[in-house]
């Protein structure tokens, strides 16, 4: 008996809760990244990934903007439940991601498994943050007058996220989860050379009750996709994690046109995606809204203070 011929997966983008091909109709080859393969100049062919165009970026922004009202308006509890659901779904497909990460990053099965486990745990970590961050960074302000004054964090809006180039899955999750935990919606540019785990993540997100459009995943040339995103007037912020120094500067300049919030890339040597993240990646994409209201007195008689 001959061995069964396996079914290849056609990797597609994840935009607005759907899995479209690139508008460009173009794909690019994704290969393994073992050091041996690197030495030989080329890895083993894994799949063809969509080569996203600026129009794909535009469509993704439209989808993210459309999803923003509902997602930012959902209760923090609800967002936490959904993020936890993402972890549950990932846990069930752990083996798939271990394989994809091993291929993508040239890791052993056990090292890849550690990455995937950490990524799953990261979703759990951020799931727990959704209904706590407002208490940590917001609060009442004791103004010197008869006013109730409360500062609350609110999501910035649509965030373009350039996923880290090296850490194709743990790094990816580490930049997406904080953005959406707080109610932002994201347009994610996957690692250019290792986009497959990111594209597969769309499949999990699509089955985790996460509303379509909250996370949108594009694959292709980072610079090509990021440039229109950085200049896009309906994008509110950009995470430059996956940009090199030159690209980061160009994008930061472009982002100034509508004063996007910019999270600059950390120097590559400093990145340890397995460390506990802290709140910085959440607060980078939060606005502080302060609401004043008179308190006054119970009565006009002056005796009720």
């Amino acid at each position, binding site marked *: 008996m001959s061995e069964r011929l396996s079914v290849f997966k056609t990797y597609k983008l994840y935009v607005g809760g759907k899995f479209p091909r690139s508008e460009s109709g173009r794909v690019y080859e994704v290969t393994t990244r073992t050091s041996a393969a690197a030495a030989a100049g080329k890895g083993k062919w894994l799949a063809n990934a969509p080569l996203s165009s600026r129009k794909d970026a535009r469509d993704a922004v439209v989808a993210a903007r459309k999803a923003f009202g509902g997602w930012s308006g959902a209760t923090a509890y609800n967002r936490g439940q959904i993020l936890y659901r993402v972890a549950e779904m990932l846990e069930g497909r752990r083996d798939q991601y271990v394989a994809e990460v091993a291929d993508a990053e040239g890791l052993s099965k056990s090292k890849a498994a550690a990455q995937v486990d950490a990524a799953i745990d990261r979703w759990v970590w951020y799931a727990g943050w959704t209904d706590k961050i407002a208490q*940590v960074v917001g609060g009442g302000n004791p103004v010197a007058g008869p006013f109730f004054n409360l500062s609350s964090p609110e999501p910035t809006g649509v965030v373009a996220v350039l996923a880290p180039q090296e850490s194709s899955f743990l790094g990816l999750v580490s930049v997406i989860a904080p953005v959406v935990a707080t109610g932002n919606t994201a347009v994610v540019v996957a690692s250019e050379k290792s986009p497959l785990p990111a594209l597969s993540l769309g499949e999990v997100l699509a089955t985790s009750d996460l509303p379509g459009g909250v996370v949108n995943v594009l694959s292709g040339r980072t610079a090509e996709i990021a440039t229109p995103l950085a200049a896009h007037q309906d994008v509110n912020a950009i995470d430059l994690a996956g940009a090199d120094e030159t690209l980061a500067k160009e994008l930061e300049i472009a982002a*100034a046109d509508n004063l996007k919030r910019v999270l600059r890339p950390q120097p590559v040597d400093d990145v340890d995606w397995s460390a506990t993240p802290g709140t*910085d990646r959440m607060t980078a994409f939060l606005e502080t809204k302060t609401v004043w209201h008179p308190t006054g007195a119970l009565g006009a008689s002056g005796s009720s203070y």
Partner: protein
Amino acid sequence: MAPASSSAPAFEYAPAPESRAVVDIAPSYGLFIDGEFTEAADGKVFKTVSPSTEEVLSEVAEAGEADVDRAVKAARKAFEKWSALPGAERAKYLFRIARIIQERSRELAVLETLDNGKPIRETRDADLPLVAAHFFYYAGWADKLDHAGYGANPRPLGVAGQVIPWNFPLLMLAWKIAPALATGNTVVLKPAETTPLSALFFADICRQAGLPKGVVNIITGDGRAGAALTAHPDVNKVAFTGSTAVGKQIARTVAGTRKKLTLELGGKGANIVFDDAPIDQAVEGIVNGIFFNQGQVCCAGSRLLVQESIHDELLDSLKRRLTTLRLGDPLDKNTDIGAINSAEQLARISALADQGEAEGAERWSPACELPSSGYWFAPTLFTNVTQAHTVARDEIFGPVLSVLTFRTPDEAVAKANNTPYGLSAGIWTEKGSRILAVANKLRAGVIWSNTFNKFDPTSPFGGYKESGFGREGGRHGLEAYLDV
């Protein structure tokens, strides 16, 4: 307006000018660098005038790139010791400064009114008390930073380059310098070209307080000095308050550097009045929202969104109220509306108002006689304004209110948010749930419900969208000056 009423009113307030004698302005001032007043390297100077009379108040040094560099070096030199000082010691310097400001508040209020053109009533009752309060507030933080929520022993950034506008010269200085010093940074601050004097008086206060040399450096000059400061490679932090256009330019300048940036920019605040509003207080809030400081306020409520069902009634009340505003000598204690800060700003306001008229909006001002010298603009309303009108979209930064209508809360929110800005908004309704629902949906950093234009050092202030980023005031304001 009251003083210009045609028939002699029965109760005409006699002039009640605040005495100028309390302030002694020198004929010339140098740059304050490393604890000394010095001339600009190239000896250049410029004049600062009183906007209400066009009288030259003084001549101040115009900083060039060499001076900026010298100031940054002085701040860098001072940084090591200043940042190493125990927080409690830094706190005491700031407390000293706060106290001296209180002691000299009448002098500073008169000075600010002379240099800026705003009424003494505002400098005396709003600007100066808030300036002192801001230093008191951040003084208390200096030795408590471990508890601020930014981790243990958060570190300062280094040298802060700060550029401030002319609308609240001393208050904006306080918003910049107080948190910077509390957190252990040293500063180079550039006041606006048209209002340099109060910052130079502040330099003297630093001297009286015994602040170590180089911790605060004040350089006067125009936009070029500001640009040189924000671009200086040895500046670690840039803080700017001013126009959105310049803010964008600064964002481009610092791109690709490690400089931390906070921007406090323009606005086109919507003041939303529902039909169940406390009308008399709403009228006061509208007036305060757009005519406080002649409307030269980034968070001004420059768009009045009024529910159609009470449009006529509210407009009648508002117009009646505007006839009681008193425009004139800013030093008169009864003056409500002072002078526009500069000829340039007056020209901009006039051009935008003319454009509003040309685009078909209906223009109204109370009968009003403007003084013959100085820069003046009568309080102005535009009715029949739509979202498409320039006066509804562009920040005018003057005493010009655009009145638009809405029918439902949804429409009010949609119109309020329909702007690239997102600094402030007002909500007027007696229905609590509506306040919360609308406040929740407005994309703006400060929401005043049933009040407007309230400020407090404990309350974070700053914008969404193109109104800038970062917060000033409160615990949040520390973040801009900490390496976190």
